[in-house]
C-alpha cells in the first residue's frame, strides 16, 4: 500500500481533478447505456467494446495524419451505422426476450468484437497523441493535460446536445414515448422497430465519441472493453434509470474513486477495485431494498 497521497496533500487535488475529468467521460458512456436500457430494456455487455472500436477510428485518423481530435466527429458517424447494423443483425431478435438472453447475446458480441479488433488492429496498447500539451496549476505541482480538459468539454457538449435533441426533435419524442410504453406508442403510430434501431445507433455513436476521447486522453487495447461496460452499468444503477444529473454526478464520483484507489492501493488493483465496488454497491442496494420490503410486510 502506497500512502504517499496522505503525506503529499497536493496529490489529492491532482487525483480529484483527474477523477472528475475522467468521470465526465464515464458519464457520457453511461448516458448511452441508460438510454438503451430505458428504451429497449437491454443491458449491452458490448458497450465497452463499442467504445474501444470508436477509439480505433480516432487512432487510425491519427496514423493517417489527420488530427485525432476530429475523431469526435467522424467516429460517431461511423459508429452510428455500426450500431444500426448490429441492431438489424442481432439485437432485434433479443429485444422482447428474457433479459438473460440479451445479456448473453451481447456478451457473445463482445467476445466477437474483442477478437476481431485484436486481428485487425493488433494486440498493442496504442494511443492517439493529440499534442495538446499540458497546463501546470498551483505553482507547477498539479499537472493538467489539455487533452483531458478537451475530452471533458466535448463530452459535456455531446451530452447537452443529446438532451436537447431528445426534448425537441420528433425522433427524440418518439424514443421517449417508446421508453414509457412501447405498446401504446405502437398503437399511436410510432414505428418502434425504427426507434429501437435509432436508439441503438445513438448509443453506439455516443460510444464512438467517448472512444475517440479515450484514445486521445488514455490508451486503448482490444481487450479493455469490459471495464467500461461495468463502469457505465454501475453509474446507471447508482443514479437510477432516467436520472441524468445523477448520471453526471455518479460518473464523477466513480472517476474520483478510481483515481484515489489507484494512488492508495496501487495501479494493479485499479480495475479490480472497480469490479469490487460494483459488487459492493449491488449488495448494498439489495439490503436497502429488502429493508423496504420488510416495511411493506
Amino acid at each position: 500500500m502506497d500512502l504517499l497521497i496522505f503525506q503529499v496533500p497536493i496529490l489529492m487535488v491532482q487525483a480529484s481533478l483527474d477523477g472528475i475529468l475522467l468521470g465526465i467521460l464515464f458519464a457520457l458512456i453511461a448516458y448511452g447505456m441508460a438510454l438503451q436500457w430505458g428504451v429497449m430494456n437491454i443491458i449491452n455487455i458490448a458497450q465497452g467494446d463499442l467504445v474501444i472500436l470508436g477509439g480505433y477510428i480516432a487512432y487510425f485518423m491519427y496514423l493517417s495524419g489527420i488530427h485525432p481530435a476530429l475523431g469526435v466527429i467522424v467516429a460517431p458517424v461511423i459508429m452510428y451505422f455500426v450500431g444500426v447494423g448490429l441492431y438489424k443483425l442481432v439485437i432485434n431478435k433479443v429485444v422482447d426476450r428474457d433479459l438473460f438472453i440479451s445479456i448473453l447475446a451481447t456478451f457473445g458480441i463482445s467476445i466477437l468484437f474483442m477478437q476481431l479488433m485484436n486481428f485487425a488492429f493488433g494486440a498493442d496498447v496504442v494511443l492517439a497523441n493529440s499534442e495538446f500539451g499540458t497546463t501546470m496549476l498551483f505553482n507547477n505541482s498539479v499537472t493538467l493535460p489539455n487533452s483531458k480538459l478537451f475530452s471533458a468539454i466535448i463530452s459535456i457538449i455531446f451530452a447537452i446536445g443529446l438532451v436537447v435533441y431528445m426534448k425537441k426533435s420528433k425522433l427524440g419524442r418518439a424514443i421517449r414515448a417508446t421508453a414509457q410504453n412501447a405498446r401504446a406508442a405502437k398503437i399511436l403510430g410510432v414505428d418502434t422497430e425504427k426507434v429501437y434501431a435509432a436508439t441503438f445507433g445513438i448509443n453506439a455513436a455516443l460510444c464512438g465519441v467517448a472512444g475517440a476521447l479515450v484514445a486521445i486522453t488514455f490508451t486503448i487495447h482490444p481487450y479493455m472493453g469490459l471495464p467500461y461496460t461495468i463502469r457505465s452499468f454501475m453509474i446507471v444503477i447508482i443514479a437510477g434509470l432516467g436520472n441524468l444529473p445523477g448520471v453526471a454526478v455518479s460518473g464523477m464520483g466513480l472517476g474520483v474513486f478510481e483515481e484515489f484507489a489507484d494512488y492508495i492501493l496501487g495501479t494493479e488493483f485499479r480495475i479490480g477495485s472497480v469490479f469490487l465496488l460494483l459488487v459492493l454497491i449491488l449488495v448494498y442496494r439489495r439490503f436497502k431494498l429488502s429493508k423496504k420490503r420488510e416495511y411493506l410486510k
Partner: protein
Amino acid sequence: MKNNNIILYAAILIFGVLAPFMLPAFKVQLSILCILIVLALTWNIQGGEMGYNSFGNILFYGLGMYICASVQVGMFFPLSEWTESGGEKTFVHSPTQFFQGMAFGLLAAAIIPTMVAGLIGYAILGLRGHYFAICTLGLGVAAGEISGGIEIIGAGQGFTTPPFPETGNLESRGQFFYFLSFLVLVLTFVAVKSVYSTRFKLVLNAIRDNEDKAEAMGIQTMKYKIIGWMISAFFCGLAGGIMGGLVGYIDSTDVAFDGREMGVFMVLMAILGGKGTLWGPVIGATLFHLFKEGFWTYFLGWQYVALGVLIVVIVIYFPEGLMGWLREKYPERFGEVVDEADRKAQVELK
C-alpha cells in the same frame, strides 16, 4: 425402462474406466472433458434449475485451483520462496509428498469455496435477474484482477504447480489425472442426480418459476438458494483444483479466473445441451468439447471469433438447447402425457 438405464450407466462407467487404455493419445483431452462436464453440471444447478444465471461460478473454480496448489506447496515448502523461484525449481516434491499434498489440497479446494459461497450467498443471492448476472460477472473479474496483484501466489507472473513425480513418465501422469477427473465426474453426477430426485429440486424449480409465490407458500427460498450455490461451489472447486494440476501453471486471468473462456464455456455448454435437465449439460459439454477441439486445432486464432458467433447463434436460435428441442419433438419420451387431438390442433395452428 429401469433396466435400460442400468445398462446405460454401466456402459458409460466401463467406457470411462477403459477409455485411457483404448484412446491413450487423448488422455488429457478426456480429462478436460470430464472437468467441463462437471462445470456444466454445477452451473446447471443455479442457471437451469434455480433460474439464477450466474457468470461468477468461475470464482469457485479459480479459488479451488489456487487453494489446491497453495496447500500442495505450502504443506512442505515455504510458499513465497516457491512462487519467487518461478520456473527454476529449488524444491522437489517426493512422490508421497505430492500425493499427500494433492489429497489435502483437493479437500481444501472443495471446502473453502463452499464456505465462501455460503458466506457471500446471503448477500449475492438476494439480487434478482440481470442484477445477479452482472454482479456475479463483476465478482469473477474482480477475483481475477485482485489475485493478479497478490505477491504470495505469484501475482502477474503466475504460479507453477508442483510437477508430477517421476517426471518423464507422461503415461502415468496422464492416467493419474484422468482417473482423478473421472472420479470427480462420477461423484458430481451421482450427487446431482440424487439431489434432483428429492424435494430439493422441486423447490429450486419453484424458485425459478416464481420466487415470490414460492416464498408465499412458506418455502424459505434463501436457504435453498444458498444450499444450491454451495453444492455448485463444492464441485467447481474440486474441478478447479484438478485442472490446476493438469495444466501445471496458474495465471490469474488466463487460467484460474478465466471469465472469457471457462466462465462462458460453462454457461454455453449447459445451454447448448438444454438447461434444466440432468443429461443436457453432459451432452452439451461433450458436443462443445468436440467442436472446440476442432476449431482450436484447425482454425487457430479464429477460435474466439467462432466462440462469439456460436454464443450469439445458440442464444438466439436454440435457447432451449438440444434436450429442449428433443422434448418438444418427442414429449412422450420425457414422460409427458400428450393428447393426440391437442397435438393435431397445434400442428394445424402452425
